[in-house]
């Protein structure tokens, strides 16, 4: 019989440890159905706008759902682009929920008519998440485009009128909307909805807008304390880098990319997560012989992510256990090494690292599927905020 001391009794690994090593199937995953979008949000993580001609067909999409059923993936987070622009949107969502794959879809609300809200209300295993980035049209529309706030509010009104029940309002926290957290909380409460705040990553079009939009260090501390006092506000565990400030926030406090979650993109490419749509984080494609399951289980990228990760420059930091070096997307798209501090490291190590970077090491936003103007650059959202120009040193 083993002695009952902490050193000799092997406790089972915590959930966190288990998940770090990866699971045989994702717990849930993000599925971007289309790169088509009728908005042009300045920070779009997927650089969406134009539909890709090689989008998965309706049949291929159903095969993906079949795989998720086999793998017992509990829940899929559908987005895009604007997923309701897919002609087979309702067919596909219906196909999934009939097979008890839970669906939460993220929408700008522009296509969420009263009639569609009623259709959605009749579906089981379905959640809806409406995206806004401010409590007022002024703040929101500066990043999402004129009229986008009003459209989102109409969608919310439609869901409420249809008796949908609690939906989610999803907000990316920016320098400009941190002061509106209480107002956003009140807005959600007014609909009986659940507020969800997520971290802005410098991904997609966000590469260029991140400098102007990301919260300041002081605002991050403010956000952290605000969240601690409100366990009912969802975060998708996206602020785990803030846990170095003290008591950890709710959630696993770890990066799930390639371990318990991943992204399937509109053309079937599988990435570690929706915030790293880049060749370096591409694991494979669902159209390969082994399908999605083959990619999840055998891709070199995911195998390497499931190995212990090097702390690198963070190894000697007392807070590393709490923050685990932060977000790889945040590091990658600001030009920082992956084994080092997060650009928003709460101890300031990220700022120091950024300051010592060569001017050439920051990536520029790829065009991706952004709609482009006659000069070949992404169509900008009219905004008074000035963004980093490519020539900045």
């Amino acid at each position, binding site marked *: 019989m083993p002695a009952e001391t902490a050193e000799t009794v092997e*406790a089972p690994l915590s*959930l966190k440890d288990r998940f770090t090593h990866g699971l045989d199937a994702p*717990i849930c995953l993000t599925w971007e159905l289309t790169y088509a979008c009728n908005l042009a949000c300045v920070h779009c993580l997927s650089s969406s706008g134009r539909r890709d001609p090689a989008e998965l067909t309706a049949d291929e999409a159903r095969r993906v759902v079949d795989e998720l059923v086999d793998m017992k993936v509990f829940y899929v987070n559908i987005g895009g682009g604007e997923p309701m622009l897919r002609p087979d949107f309702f067919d596909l969502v219906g196909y999934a929920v009939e097979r008890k794959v839970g669906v939460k879809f993220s929408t700008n609300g522009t296509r969420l008519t009263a009639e569609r809200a009623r259709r959605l209300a009749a579906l089981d295993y379905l959640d809806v998440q409406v995206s806004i980035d401010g409590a007022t049209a002024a703040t929101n529309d500066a990043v999402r485009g004129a009229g986008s706030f009003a459209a989102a509010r109409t969608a919310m009104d439609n869901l409420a009128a249809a008796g949908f029940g609690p939906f989610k309002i999803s907000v990316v926290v920016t320098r400009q909307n941190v002061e509106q957290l209480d107002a956003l909380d009140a807005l959600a409460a007014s609909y009986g909805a659940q507020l969800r705040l997520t971290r802005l990553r410098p991904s997609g079009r966000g590469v260029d807008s991140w400098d102007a939009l990301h919260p300041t260090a002081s605002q991050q501390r403010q956000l952290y304390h605000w969240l601690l006092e409100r366990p009912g506000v969802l975060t*998708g565990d996206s602020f785990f880098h803030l846990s170095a400030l003290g008591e950890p926030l709710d959630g696993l406090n770890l990066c799930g990319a390639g371990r318990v979650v991943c992204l399937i993109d509109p053309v079937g490419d599988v990435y*570690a997560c929706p915030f790293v749509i880049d060749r370096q984080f591409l694991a494979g494609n669902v159209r390969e012989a082994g399908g999605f399951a083959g990619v999840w289980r055998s891709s070199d990228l995911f195998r390497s992510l499931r190995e212990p990760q090097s702390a690198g420059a963070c190894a000697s930091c007392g807070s590393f256990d709490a923050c685990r070096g932060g977000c790889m997307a945040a590091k990658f798209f600001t030009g920082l090494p992956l084994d080092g501090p997060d650009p928003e490291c709460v101890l300031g190590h990220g700022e120091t690292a950024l300051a010592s970077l060569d001017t050439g090491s920051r990536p520029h936003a790829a065009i991706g599927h952004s709609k482009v103007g006659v000069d070949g650059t992404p169509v900008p959202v009219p905004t008074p905020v000035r963004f980093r120009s490519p020539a900045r040193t």
Partner: protein
Amino acid sequence: MLAEDQDTQDIEDVSDEDVDELLVEEVSIDGMCGVY
């Protein structure tokens, strides 16, 4: 790596609080980073 028979060894003499951590752990479906 845990042996398969760890089940019966690992919960000997555990206190009430330890049960929570050793046998049952809950996490929010929204509680893992990397999804929308």
